[in-house]
């Protein structure tokens, strides 16, 4: 029972209500989409769940754990991993080292073991190294394991962030715009990878994404925010046809002949989803 439950969550930044009275539950082992126009509060929700910010009202529970009193590092320990909208890799570290940092929590060897170079230390390093390489294989990054992480192309940096998050052996994975900057082919690959991760590691995935091709194609349930407030919730089909959602994205509630690009994105997402 490790579902993520938000109840009446509210967060104000000064006079600005970033998130207002948001309630939703992410079922275990689902792929859940959190969408909305820019400034809707999606990333703030992620920051609240991962402890970067603390909500002012309401509650966030992961399983039975209340995340509010926990520091971000502790929340990672509980099993919530995330990626960042503006990629946050450790730029001076190599690709492999980026992953190895994420396994400090799982180590049995502590500082003294590392200083004395005991057997536990070497065993730990070997196990972690093997796991990291395995994940790099999965994300097709094994060939660049010893490269500085910033030398990777953009799409690979995003995949590296997901791989790093997976090193934590999380139960819940929060992906903040994983498809940003990806082309059609890469986005298709990403969709497959997200499904594969969920199935293989029994994960719950929450996705903040603007790319409707990905959102509509992979999510089982979608929650839509606008100006910090819930405007719709349901299956991809229901959300796409929700007049409030269309209004939020298009800036009006009428159906003009000249559709702005966002509408095409929603529309093409629909076609995409029913395609395969």
């Amino acid at each position, binding site marked *: 029972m490790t579902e993520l439950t938000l109840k009446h969550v509210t967060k104000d930044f000064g006079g600005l209500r970033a998130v207002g009275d948001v309630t939703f539950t992410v079922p275990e082992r689902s792929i859940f989409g959190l969408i909305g126009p820019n400034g809707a509060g999606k990333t703030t929700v992620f920051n609240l769940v991962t402890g970067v910010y603390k909500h002012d009202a309401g509650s966030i529970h992961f399983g039975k754990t209340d995340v509010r009193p926990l520091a971000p590092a502790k929340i990672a320990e509980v099993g919530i991993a995330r990626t960042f909208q503006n990629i946050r890799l450790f730029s001076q570290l190599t690709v492999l080292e980026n992953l190895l940092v994420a396994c400090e929590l799982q*180590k049995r060897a502590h500082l003294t073991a590392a200083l004395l170079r005991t057997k536990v230390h070497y065993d730990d390093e070997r196990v972690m190294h093997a796991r990291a390489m395995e994940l790099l*294989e999965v994300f*097709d990054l094994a060939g660049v394991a*010893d490269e500085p992480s910033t030398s990777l192309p953009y799409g690979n940096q995003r995949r590296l962030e997901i791989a790093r998050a997976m090193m934590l052996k999380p139960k819940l994975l929060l992906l903040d715009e994983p498809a940003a900057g990806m082309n059609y082919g890469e986005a298709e*690959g990403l969709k497959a990878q997200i499904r594969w991760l969920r199935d293989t590691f029994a994960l719950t995935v929450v996705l903040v994404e603007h790319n409707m091709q990905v959102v509509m194609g992979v999510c089982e349930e979608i929650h839509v925010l606008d100006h910090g407030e819930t405007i719709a919730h349901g299956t991809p089909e229901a959300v796409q046809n929700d007049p409030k959602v269309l209004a939020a994205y298009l800036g009006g509630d009428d159906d003009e002949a000249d559709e702005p690009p966002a509408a095409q994105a929603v529309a093409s997402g629909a076609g995409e989803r029913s395609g395969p």
Partner: protein
Amino acid sequence: MAGALVLFTVLDFTLDRILPDSSIRQLLLLAACNVLVALSLNVINGMAGQFSIGHAGFLGLGGYTSAVVSSHLHEALGGGDPTFARSFIVVPVALLASALIAGAFGYLVGLPSLRLKGDYLAIVTLGFAEIVRLLIATAQLGEKQTVGEAFAQVGGPKGVVGPFFHALSVAITSLGGQNGYAGPKNMGVPLYAGPFWIFGLALVLGILAYRLKFSGWGRALRALREDEIAAAAVGVDPTRYKVRSFVIAAVGAGIAGGLMAMNRDGTPTVQPDNYNFAASFDAITMVILGGSGSVTGAAIGGVLITFTIKAIEAIQSTSVIQSLKRSASWLDLNALRMIIYAGVLIALMIWRPEGLLGERELFQKKRSPKPSPKPRGTPPSEGGDTPPDAPPDAQAGTP
């Protein structure tokens, strides 16, 4: 390493004969002590990237603690000349005490200031070092009453606080104030730490620092320096790691300070002015000169700065400078050191801002420096700027 320890043992007995000039011996031992100073400061300033500018405070705590412990232990063991055999009792006990005291104060100073973001650590450590120095330098029991008694008079809680402050002020006063501490009977601090201890500890602690850097711990510190939010998101607790590295740095400084106080070829007194801001600044220069984050770099910086300081002292005693001083008595010769230092640092910042070694190590295989975007075996997908005809490629994760 065992071989090195044997060598140092031999040196312990023979160095007097190999190098009859005690000032050169002192220089070598001081250089090794300064290596320890730089190694310990490097943990917090270099590896963890938190700027501490009060390292002298911890050196002072370690120095005074070792001086007090070793001289009392020396008396208890019967006095006389410090022997090599007896140093195996005195030095470990004194250094352990120094390490504990310095570490405890490191925790007290670090915990509140490292929780905050920004440069608070620099301010707090600077203040701390000056407080330690001034407290010892200016301590004197009042003619009529002590701090503790004054406390009791103004109606402060009697019982515990008054006597505690009284004992504390008596203890601090017994450290000799501005004149320095020279043992309980003013016979001088017994100088137990010979080449075996100083070179040996420099080697052992150097290896430990190296292992610290090349462990998961060092990796986590580097990650933390890069991006605190991302590090926290993968389970590296910033406060915990920073406070721990600060305590490690303080412990190292305590040991270095203790060794300096007991340095066989040093002076048998410990003086507050040894731990002024210039000493902290020297330590920072060592780390920056060698390359922040590099263990071997810090060691090289420690040696170089020691030699530079001595060279400047030698220049100051030359006849030209002396005659200059006679003609202009206002000339502060210590300022010469600062001028040369400043020159070196400015030159370093211009031509080699990362220090001599940067973050690299002396005996480390070079990481491929070129940011080659196309290593072998990469899939064709190159990011968002490639034409959309790139195939969905063989994502290994595809079910």
